[in-house]
């Protein structure tokens, strides 16, 4: 079942096409990888989906509903959570309060919000840090807080924007475990990632873009062996070996 779909997405910044005619469909329950070199438009696609800026043209559908014109907060309420590549912790609040604020998207009373937040912190492995101010967390745990906060809004679709970047190898393994655990809960995931170890191991399907345009899509093996992808990452001479 297709849960999420973008059709002919286009975004111009002035005369520059940051995203140019990108279309893809995401199946319910899968991990969908979005890859591409720096500046290829991955984060822009996320920002278009979560409506941080308006699309130039194209349509976005979630659960057969056209959400292109939804405001950012309504996108969240509709069931799409996201994390930020440049983490945005609510710095002077405790980790727990960060997650409680998110939990209020689904529950009304403080008691319920606290319960949901504690449960989510436990699930994401951040419960031992709950009393600490978010700004004093190290980067690895800040990334984890981003995921925890998004999970507390009970999303059906989760957009992960480079949540593995800047992590050390052992943190990387726990991050992968967490993402797979989230998938087990039935949450569909779209992940933007540079670290190939992560994206190749966990993605069910991958969509590769460069200069805002689709260059390949398919299973991780297919995409990894695609000449256009190799060219985009390593340069033309490697593509034809």
């Amino acid at each position, binding site marked *: 079942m297709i849960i999420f779909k973008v059709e002919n997405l286009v975004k111009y910044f002035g005369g520059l096409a940051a995203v140019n005619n990108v279309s893809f469909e995401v199946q319910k329950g899968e991990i969908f990888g979005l890859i591409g070199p720096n500046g290829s438009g991955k984060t822009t696609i996320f920002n278009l989906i*979560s409506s*941080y800026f308006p699309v130039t043209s194209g349509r976005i559908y979630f659960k057969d509903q056209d959400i292109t014109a939804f*405001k*950012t*907060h*309504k996108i*969240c*309420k509709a069931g799409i*959570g*996201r994390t*930020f590549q440049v983490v*945005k*912790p*609510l*710095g*002077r*609040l405790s980790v727990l*309060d960060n997650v*409680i*604020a*998110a939990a*209020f*998207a689904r529950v*009304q*009373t*403080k008691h319920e*919000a606290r319960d949901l937040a504690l449960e989510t912190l436990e699930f994401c492995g951040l419960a031992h840090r709950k009393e600490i101010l978010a700004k004093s967390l190290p980067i690895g745990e800040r990334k984890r807080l981003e995921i925890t*906060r*998004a999970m507390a*809004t009970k999303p059906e679709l989760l957009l992960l924007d480079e949540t593995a970047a800047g992590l050390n190898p052992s943190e990387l393994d726990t991050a992968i475990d967490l993402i797979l655990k989230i998938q087990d809960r039935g949450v569909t995931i779209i992940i933007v990632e540079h670290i190939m170890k992560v994206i190749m191991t966990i993605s069910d399907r991958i969509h590769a873009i460069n200069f805002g345009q689709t260059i390949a899509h398919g299973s991780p093996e297919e995409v990894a062996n695609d000449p256009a992808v190799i060219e985009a990452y390593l340069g033309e001479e490697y593509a034809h070996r």
Partner: protein
Amino acid sequence: MKKYAPFLLLFILIIFPLVIQNSYYQHLMILVLMWVVIGSGWNMIAGYTGQVSFGDAAFFGTGAYTAGLIASKLGLSAWWGMAFGGFTAMAVAFPFGWICFRLRGAYFALASLALNEICRHIATIWEDLTEGMVGILIMPSFLSKIPYYYIALALAVMSVLMVQIVMNSKWGYYFLSIREDQDAAESLGINTHHYKMISLNIAAFLTGMAGSLFMNYMGFIDPEVVFSLHDISIMAILVGIVGGVGTIYGPVVGAFVMVAVHEFFRTGFFGFFKGLAALTGSEHLTVAAKYIGQAHVLGFGILVVVVILVLPNGIVGDWGKIIRKVIPMKTKGVTT
């Protein structure tokens, strides 16, 4: 101990006018309580929601004029202003917030400054309605200060409780999220524009109520008094900053300190310069004594610099720091 401090303070405030019969001190305490209300309102929008407002006088003046006009135009008691003042202030806040919350940070602050000036000019120029610079004079209802004192106290307690209840609810978490990161807040399903409006309207309501109280108590208002940038808007910010931005009891402490500082300057250091001039017979000191009373804005400026350097989180916010500074001094004093 800390848990009972608010109740102790409330008890002291309740018995204060019965113990201290001096009407000058009672007058100062009424002002302090009024500033607790205004400071709590400012703290709500600026301290907790992070939308710094330089325009509190717009709401204060609207509340004051509501009470004044009810008395002068409709011939009713000015106390009706207490019922409507908060709502007319919200009526000013609503369109202002609707438009200006598209601005962020310093730009919103500048817009609120403009709102302050617009209101002051309207009140000055629209003489048919407001009597312009002549102002509005009403007969005070009570000769004694004690009724005013208890009304102000009730209003102050209501404001502090209101802030406390709101900050413990969903709204409170949403306000803090908006302060910390507006983009992150949006991604968590928070309609930031909507919740900024709620916060601003709570602030406007409290400030408008304080304005109505001011009209009833002082018996006289004119645009320069109630729409004053430095005596109302800036003073509200100082009450917040000195007491502690984003703390429940910050405005309470800030109101005490700022009313004292304001009075200190207004009276020329409690008549110190006047006394000195009379004692020495120096002409220069006589002139200085005259001007020092008008220099309180300069004093405010210096105070802000000192507070931001020494206590960036205000007296309540940095209370732990103050205690640590004081206690080693004490122990040192004991050993030597």
